[in-house]
């Protein structure tokens, strides 16, 4: 069984975030980037499942600009067998990422798709759930414990929910998103980092995967200057009050 792990390159958690002076976004140039901590936990879980003999291969996947390759190499150094990079320079919103993941799942056909529960830059907490919906696979999100039963093709996932802990039984193939207490990720050792430098990373583009990454989100409208103006517009132009 193959396990696919989706990882994201984000601003390092210890960096002090700054807003750009033109207010168009967060300063990301000259800032340390690293693998999303939840993605690290996801990759660690995949590696442990593989080491216990229940999986044959761990594939790390990342989407974004060319520097994502660095994050993938860290993943390879931790122990992933292969890496795939989907090159996309535009901002990718969760639905686009989910569509790309679905396309990759159709190519690689893994038995398990593991993601971090959310990325620490946008905190969306959407991609895992969306991709499960697109694939029509069962999902176990906020996993704090994962136990696989290969024979019965079932994953027992303990989830951290608002009310406490919930245990679900998922038929494989399934989507799991990891929460903080699932495991403690391993360090990538120097020899492994060195070996990972020479491993080949497969590249795809969204076009090759037949995925349209244009965002469905569009912000339109007018910014008004005062509450009175807003009330006026709602009353007289939009006729909603």
């Amino acid at each position, binding site marked *: 069984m193959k396990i696919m792990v989706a990882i994201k390159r984000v601003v390092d958690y210890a*960096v002090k975030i700054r807003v750009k002076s033109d207010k168009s976004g967060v300063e990301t140039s000259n800032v*340390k980037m690293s693998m999303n901590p939840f993605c690290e936990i996801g990759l660690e879980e995949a590696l442990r499942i593989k080491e216990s003999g229940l999986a044959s291969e761990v594939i790390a996947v990342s989407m974004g600009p060319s520097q994502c390759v660095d994050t993938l190499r860290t993943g390879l150094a931790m122990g992933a067998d292969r890496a795939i990079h989907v090159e996309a320079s535009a901002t990718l919103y969760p639905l686009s990422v989910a569509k790309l993941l679905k396309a990759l799942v159709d190519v690689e056909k893994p038995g398990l798709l593991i993601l971090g529960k959310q990325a620490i830059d946008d905190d969306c907490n959407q991609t895992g759930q969306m991709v499960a919906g697109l694939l029509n696979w069962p999902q176990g999100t906020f996993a704090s414990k994962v136990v696989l039963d290969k024979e019965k093709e079932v994953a027992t996932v303990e989830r951290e929910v608002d009310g406490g802990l919930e245990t679900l039984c998922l038929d494989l193939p399934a989507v799991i998103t990891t929460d903080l207490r699932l495991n403690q990720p391993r*360090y990538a050792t*120097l*020899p492994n980092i*060195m070996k990972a*430098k020479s491993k080949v990373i497969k590249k795809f583009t969204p076009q090759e995967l037949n995925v349209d990454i244009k965002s469905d989100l569009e912000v339109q409208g007018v910014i008004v200057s005062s509450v009175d103006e807003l009330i006026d517009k709602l009353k007289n132009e939009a006729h909603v009050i």
Partner: protein
Amino acid sequence: MFRFLSKSNNTIRKLSSKSFHPTLYASSSPHHCKSKISTIHPQIASPISSNAFDPSGSSSKPSDSRYPTGSPNGSPFFRALDRNSSFSGPQMAVNRFFSSGYLLNCKNLRNGKGNRRGFLRVGSFVGESRAFSSEPDRESMEYDVVIVGAGPSGLSAAIRLKQMCRAKDVDFSVCVVEKGAEVGAHILSGNVFEPRALDELLPEWKQEEAPINVPVSSDKFWLLTKDRAFSLPSPFDNKGNYIISLSQLVRWLGGKAEELGVEIYPGFAASEILYDANHKVIGIGTNDMGIAKDGSKKENFQRGVELRGRVTLLAEGCRGSLSEKVLRDYNLREKAQAQHQTYALGIKEVWEIDEGKHKTGTVLHTLGWPLDHKTYGGSFLYHMNDRQVSIGLVVALNYHNPFLNPYEEFQKLKHHPAIKPLLEGGTVLQYGARTLNEGGFQSIPYPVFPGGAIIGCSAGFLNVPKIKGTHTAMKSGMLAAEAAFDVLHEGSSMEKYWDGLRNSWIWEELHKARNYRPAFEYGLVPGLALSALEHYVLKGRSPLTLKHGKPDHEATDVAQLHSPIQYPKPDGIVSFDVPTSLYRSNTNHDHDQPSHLHLRDPQIPERVNLPDFAGPESRYCPARVYEYVPDEKGELRLQINAQNCLHCKACDIKDPKQNIEWTVPEGGGGPGYSAM
């Protein structure tokens, strides 16, 4: 297997009278034994060929590395033919056919500590002792050159080595380890950059888009009093120099080095020096990761790795932890009849200020207030581009008053009426601190040791009156690289580096600048007067060489002789408290690791530092690592908040009893400077 062993045992015994540890070869593989036997034979030629071109394939990876005895001579071939060390040669020879670092999965290599306990006794047999230890042994990686520290000197050395390889059509593997999470993360400097060394190293730096864009447009020098600023003639000549962020330049250099094939590994801290049986340095070991605060192994425990190099270059920056050990170990200061090193602590912030107040290229240096006449130091203010401004205060660490708090002095400085208006309305982007060398010419140690050399600020080439050390650090790296290349390629000695230094412009420049700083031992005004004499009259041709005063840690007076200084509270606009500033340094360490700050005697803080000196470490540390807090009984106890550490090394330098030893924490921790 043991039959072979005894044979080798006896043969070795004939060559040396020292006893042989019987377990030495116990765990070796059969092949290993075989190669050992063949190498003992005095005839060298056949073993070389049999090892190197063994058709069986499996022997292409010799499982042990052997280094020539004693002398820094690098070539194994010549080594092998003389003396009894005949079996050291061929093993070496085989290794050298592989130019890039490769893995040795040797289960039985130990570091020098084991050697010195007397496990390896065969005198002329140069190898590693193999003690049986309960810990999993470390993997070992071999390179031709191992460089500790990806700073200006380390990267310049790496780049120069690869350039020479290309020129002579050979290839030597170069590995750079860096304790910061990324290249440039621990780099902090003013910085008005003199491109002299970079012009020699990478003449096309402008076309290759080095982040050097702001030429110096004006050079001001003020003497400050509490309320006024008096303009003095500027002693600096910064024409042709640039205002840069050294962190960014180093990151660019790192990119250039990687393009040339240098392997750079950030996030790995070199924590120990590896020695062979003859006390020659053969590389470094990174520290184990994943150890909990109580010393136990966490679930992600990872043993460190040995990086072995035929040449090891230590480029750790000012007061490098390994460099200090090596300097003491080989008595390198005495060897050059050098004085002790003296230091200063620099605390810096990068601000983004209002457009109207910003004038790109402006350079300002100040003397005087807030420091008193007995304390050497001054401030700097440089206008970079993008409305950014570097501002900082440098305080010499031989200050006398134990109540002095360099961080608070810096906050005071920012309130000066000539400086405060500039900063008002701006935001602080980053904060950091680092010590720097002020010893200059008089303190340069002998920088060559068996197996390698010390480059950059770890040796100490900063030109104090110019307050520039980057160009000399880079040049020293280049000179060491040239010497190291000859060691690897021709078998010459690393001594060439010392000769190179003395014949270079570094020597000439530092010699001319040698009397400025020591003149201030006599106070601010005599210092200025003597400096003016040096600069305008003697022009560096002084017949005397002034000496430094006491070492920094001995210069602190007892607290009785001074009274506490009342520092104003931070206003949150221009001055800030330490936690706020620390947050801006992006500093972090995994909290669950043993403290990397070791007290040689854990009782001294409460017995000496606190009563005699009023706990100066709680004041000079720019990161509030050291705090005296009352315990359950109400007595003050030293609390070490190692997680805050900025890796500045001030504590290692200034502790009155030299009780604090700064060792390296897990790699990847520490500050995250990106624009400093």
